[in-house]
């Protein structure tokens, strides 16, 4: 059943789930929700499995019209919709669900009871338009929802307060040593963990550029090597780049560290201006 019509996509809107694994050897990155914690919570609020397809909205400007009454949930960045972040509501036909002003975080997730229906390619409904897999949503698209997965089952209509994250106040971002950690000198490594960082405006689903300190990368003359999500590469200009979910599967710059998978959703929601620090992972 068609439940939502796209009126405006704002700064960007795609369908995402928890991403696709197992295709890296063909050059296919994981994709999936930038903040899987929030995407999973949106799904739980409407009784879906954590990995049901959701809408991922960047910051603000997206607007939808409800075509059929359903329960919808919003989680992640707070963008001023009639459903506040981390809550679910039954919306009636004709309601406008708009996200006019992003106040905290970067990525907002919208889930619908039954999950959004989207074509699965390589095991996932996640759009990766840059790689020719799926596409961005467009104004006029009519989005379909599946049948509620367990009709009659009570969905979690609330979350624990600690699940509702305040993206203006990120915790320490935990970082494992990268493959070239040993080749960075002591000063660089110490400086990396003492600096206060923020993300640059030139950041997207592919990579986040970090501002805060200028790093000196060792001159290694490396060949490209496979990279994991969260890898922190230091290119010759000294500005670290973190490989995000649509990032290339190979990279040729020295990697000082790897953001811990549990910290990566926090990093993903840090907007420019939000300061954070990094600390060694245990």
């Amino acid at each position, binding site marked *: 059943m068609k439940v939502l019509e796209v009126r405006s996509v704002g700064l960007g809107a795609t369908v995402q789930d928890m991403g696709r694994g197992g295709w890296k050897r063909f050059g296919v990155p994981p994709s999936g929700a930038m903040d899987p914690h929030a995407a999973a919570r949106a799904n739980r609020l409407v009784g879906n499995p954590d990995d049901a397809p959701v809408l991922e909205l960047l910051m603000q400007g997206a607007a939808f019209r409800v075509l059929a009454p359903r329960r919808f949930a919003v989680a992640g960045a707070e963008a001023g919709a009639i459903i506040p972040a981390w809550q679910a509501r039954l919306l009636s036909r004709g309601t406008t669900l708009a996200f006019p002003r992003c106040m905290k975080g970067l990525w907002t997730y919208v889930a619908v009871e039954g999950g959004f229906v989207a074509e699965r390619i390589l095991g996932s409904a996640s759009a990766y338009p840059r790689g*020719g897999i799926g596409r961005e949503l467009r104004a006029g698209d009519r989005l379909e929802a599946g049948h509620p997965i367990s009709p009659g089952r009570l969905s979690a209509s609330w979350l624990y307060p600690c699940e509702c994250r305040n993206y203006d106040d990120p915790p320490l971002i935990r970082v494992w040593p990268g493959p070239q950690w040993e080749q960075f000198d002591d000063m660089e490594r110490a400086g990396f963990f003492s600096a206060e960082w923020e993300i640059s405006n030139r950041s997207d689903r592919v990579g986040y550029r970090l501002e805060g300190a200028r790093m000196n990368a060792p001159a290694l003359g490396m060949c*490209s*090597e496979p990279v994991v999500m969260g890898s922190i590469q230091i290119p010759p200009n000294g500005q670290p780049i973190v490989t995000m979910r649509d990032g290339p599967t190979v990279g040729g710059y020295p990697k000082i560290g790897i953001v811990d998978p549990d910290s990566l959703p926090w990093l993903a929601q840090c907007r420019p201006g939000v300061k954070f620090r990094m600390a060694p992972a245990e």
Partner: protein
Amino acid sequence: MRWTPCGPCAVLIEFPEHIGARARAIEEMLVVDPTVADFAIAFDKLLIEFVPGTPVDAAHWLRRLEALPISANIEPTTHEIPVVYDGPDLIEVAERHGLTREELIELHSTPVYEVALLGFAPGFPYLSGLDSRLHTPRRANPRPTVPAGAVAIGGSHAGIYSVPTPGGWNLIGMTNARLFDPQRREPDESAMFLLRPGDRVKFTPVP
């Protein structure tokens, strides 16, 4: 073989030389292992990502990889890729190396290349084996869009664009081979990709 951890659930293994034709045997070993979530190959390196929660036992994997015979009985597939040599950078690349158009085509279509990695975009191959007389730095100003099927030279590698994307490689021709086609799903979804790591590629000029 050396290895280094890559975060809590992955290892990066460095082979003494390019993985090359062993890629197929490695693939056959890893795809059936329930503890392996994903893996990637590039030149002399193999990344193995494990299902979260799996203890990372690098020594076990080094032993298994070292036990693989060099070619492991799996003959790499050779793909003939037809090319119309009419790329926008063809003449510039030829002149840069003091070659005629015909000499460039000859040098590019003679070797049997090896897929050293697929990356940068789904199904995009970095092909090793490019004649050193054709090594050409990437363009200072990348093009905003390069069409899928563009046959290109980037540094010491030959390549083929698999999806329309911005790109800085030098474009020397076009092929109608589809390196990545999401509609190609038989016998399974891996059919979307024309090439696998370790495969061989031969370019055939189309008049």
